[in-house]
């Protein structure tokens, strides 16, 4: 009753959310540049200064007398080479070789100076701030010159997308085939390219006394919960070690529940996934040397969502999500239920099934528990052998495993065919989840359940389930309950987590992760024929 009441409350709260805020979002002041050089720099700093990748290159233009100038750019997006040859060289070196009269003349005629000396391919004169910010985010440099009421946009962006690889662990059929790489610079570039927002912030943290590994903390400033960012930075700064070996060890240093079986940090190697998670109000941590980006705070459903879902029809995506969740249940409980039912509760089986199992098991020398344990452990061994050996040898292992161990063991009567089916099913269901963090823990829980089932039957499984649920609901990831939206229950958030509703139906971010700025999509975007009013208005 209480549960229903709470969810009703939440539904009502949902209706009260003010969507007007979303409509007013674009109301950002536009400012004209003035002759005041320092003021102009500060204007840009104000908008973008939070991010560490905003860079300034101060230099003097070789006029007589020299003119102070600065190029502002996002160092994740630009090509240093072009910058050097097309901007710095002409303005400093080439100009210095010109005649004195010319250089004096240029001092008072900046416009001509730009037009005549700058060998950049695309330049434009910009007088207002918003346009300059757009150019910056598009990867261009902004040249500010002392005593000039306009700025110059320079095309110094990297044209080709910096080297990226196909994601190896999270494949999709229809979506982008771009994955992060080991080097940190292209990774930041990929994120900047996807989110052209002045609010996207990169913060640099260096960790490791010996290695001095570079980390980038990425978040969207006006969406993220600031207290989580602060907390994360504190936790990161606390790390004092010779050197972390990749993002996985960072995960261990910053976890909320360091000794728990379940990890409460998420990782991905897909830029599109990072993009969608950043827009959810999460924080990404890019670690130099690892293609896997850590995401905090994470919730349990992250591990069940594949980016593929968003590139397919909502119906099929919802179906495959439900498959994923039931896969987790099957993986954890199926062997245990098999053991419990065949050794304690034969009466719950339908008669025909009971007879079939009894028939398949007749002549098997071991109890069902030992039988299931043998097969589960040999399967895990096979999997380990298959993943650690080189690819072509790995295939040989799986053939030996499947044919010799599976078939011969059944034929020899050491294990029953039913238990082979059970083990195969748990294996296949464990592959439905693309992210190993959560599945690895469940694979261990499966063995605990098996032992409990062998000792106490269904009672044991229920005890195990209780302990497991208590553990899971007590987990927090940077203060966010790990089991959101299951516990605390939020039907509203299940729209995008348990099912995959169409994009226009999901208008809000999770209340548990984001405190303010909850609305992410305008309401009533469900496609419909245009109204007469809309028809009359022709842009």
């Amino acid at each position, binding site marked *: 009753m209480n549960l229903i009441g709470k969810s009703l409350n939440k539904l009502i709260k949902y209706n009260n959310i003010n969507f007007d805020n979303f409509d007013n979002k674009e109301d950002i002041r536009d400012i004209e540049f003035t002759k005041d050089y320092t003021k102009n720099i500060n204007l840009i700093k104000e908008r973008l200064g939070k991010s560490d990748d905003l860079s300034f290159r101060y230099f003097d233009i070789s006029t007589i007398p020299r003119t102070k100038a600065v190029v502002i750019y996002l160092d994740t997006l630009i090509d240093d080479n072009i910058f050097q040859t097309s901007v710095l060289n002409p303005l400093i070196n080439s100009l210095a070789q010109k005649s004195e009269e010319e250089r004096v003349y240029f001092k008072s005629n900046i416009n001509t100076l730009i037009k005549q000396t700058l060998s950049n391919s695309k330049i434009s004169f910009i007088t207002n701030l918003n346009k300059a910010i757009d150019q910056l985010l598009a990867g261009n440099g902004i040249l500010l010159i002392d005593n000039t009421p306009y700025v110059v946009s320079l095309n110094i962006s990297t044209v080709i997308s910096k080297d990226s690889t196909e994601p190896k662990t999270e494949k999709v059929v229809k979506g982008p085939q771009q994955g992060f790489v080991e080097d940190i610079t292209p990774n930041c570039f990929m994120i900047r390219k996807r989110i052209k927002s002045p609010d996207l912030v990169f913060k640099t943290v260096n960790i490791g006394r010996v290695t001095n590994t570079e980390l980038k903390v990425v978040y969207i400033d006006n969406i993220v919960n600031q207290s989580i960012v602060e907390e994360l930075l504190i936790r990161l700064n606390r790390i004092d070690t010779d050197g972390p070996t990749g993002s996985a060890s960072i995960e261990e240093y910053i976890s909320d529940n360091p000794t728990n079986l379940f990890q409460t940090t998420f990782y991905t190697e897909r830029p599109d996934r990072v993009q969608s998670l950043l827009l959810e109000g999460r924080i990404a941590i890019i670690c130099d040397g690892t293609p896997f980006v850590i995401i905090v705070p994470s919730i349990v459903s992250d591990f069940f969502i594949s980016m593929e879902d968003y590139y397919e029809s909502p119906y099929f995506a919802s179906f495959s999500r439900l498959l994923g969740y039931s896969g987790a249940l099957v993986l954890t409980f199926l062997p245990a239920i098999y053991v419990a039912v065949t050794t304690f509760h034969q009466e719950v089986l339908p008669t025909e099934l009971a007879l079939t199992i009894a028939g398949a098991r007749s002549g098997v020398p071991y109890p069902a528990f030992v039988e299931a344990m043998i097969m589960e452990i040999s399967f895990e061994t096979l999997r380990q052998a298959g993943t650690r050996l080189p690819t072509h040898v790995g295939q040989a292992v799986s053939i030996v495993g499947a044919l010799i161990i599976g078939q011969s063991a059944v034929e020899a009567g050491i294990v029953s065919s039913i238990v082979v089916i059970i083990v195969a099913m748990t294996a296949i269901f464990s592959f439905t989840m693309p992210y190993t963090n959560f599945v690895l823990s469940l694979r261990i829980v499966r063995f605990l359940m098996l032992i409990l089932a062998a*000792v106490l039957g269904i009672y044991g499984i229920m005890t195990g389930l209780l302990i497991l649920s208590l553990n899971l609901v007590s987990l927090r990831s940077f203060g966010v309950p790990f089991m959101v939206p299951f516990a605390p229950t939020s039907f509203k958030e299940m729209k995008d987590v348990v099912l995959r509703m169409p994009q226009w139906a999901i208008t809000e971010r999770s209340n548990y992760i984001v405190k303010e700025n909850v609305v992410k999509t305008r309401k009533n975007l469900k496609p419909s024929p245009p109204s007469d009013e809309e028809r009359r208005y022709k842009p």
Partner: protein
Amino acid sequence: MKKLLIILTILISTTFLTSCWSRREINSLGFVMGLGITKTDSGLYSIVAQLANPSDLAAEGVTGKDIYTTIKSEGLTVFDALRNMSMIAKRRVFISHIKTIVISEDIAREGLSDVISFFVQDMEIRLESIVLISKDKPEVIFDTPNFVGIVPGLGMSIIAKNFGANNKIYIADLHETVEAVNNPVINYVTTLVTVTPPPTELEKPELKLSQIAIFDSDKLKGYLDYEEGQAYNLVTNNFKNGLIVFDYAPHNDKITIEGLESKADIKPKYENGVVSFDIELSIKGSIGEKIPMETTPHSLDIETLQNQLSQVIEDKINKAIVAAQKSYKLDYFNLSSHFFRKYPKEFKEIKGEWDEIFSNATINVKVDSCIIHSALNLNRGRV
């Protein structure tokens, strides 16, 4: 730390001290498919259990006698006899999956309450198995192998599920049996199982659930024929897809009506100490078959047909009621329960002589039939 230690101790001790309490491997169980109960001449209960042979059931190409084992033992009570079985059975006798319970006629005539009580008191048993009466010894019934590859005990429960196709029999499950036996007013009804001779020499004898057996409370009184069986199912709202065959008066065609839906509404009346019942039956059906007796094609008049069907069913029910009133003097339709629901106080007073009252009661039957579909082709029944 100390707290954690205590919790761990409790957890570990519950896990290991119980040491797999009541564990039994599924392949060590003897699944009892059917149980037969009879009495020996010396008054001992004799139990026949039919155990399935799971390994033979799972194997390919094994049918007939190999898929089951029938064992028999005797004891002072049903439970005692069942426990004595452990001296014979190579497996633990597991009775949760019993499908069929066959009770011999001699026990049924004495009263079922002696043997049924065990099935309620035992915790292992499910109340969904069917209960049948047999004139033959139960071991003969159970040891009737077939070529279909089904254990006879299981086979009988499958036949029972199909009773709606004929509606000439009615099979009670254990739950109904227990209720009827415990209630002195309700008269129990179930079906007789017989072994029919094989149609050819190469075939095997088959089991047949042949007739409804009627009981005075829990004592067997007699058997109904097919007509009475259908009437019983019609009155008790159990009529499903049974067939009703009659001659279409204007042309003498043989018409078969397949029932689709039937609902009986029984209204008891109690006026001046006289009990009477109005049974209103509405039945929907379709024409399943028509055998034309005349050579010239003619069309059926549905209205006439409906009226005639109503008449046929009325006659059928009336005949059965008269037989119940006059020859059996037994309210096997359990009209008493309808009466009790409407006149609970009055019923308490006349409960003792209910059979007498039932025998003299006026029972009016009114049938309203509706033929919703003629399953005939364009040639009006001609091929």
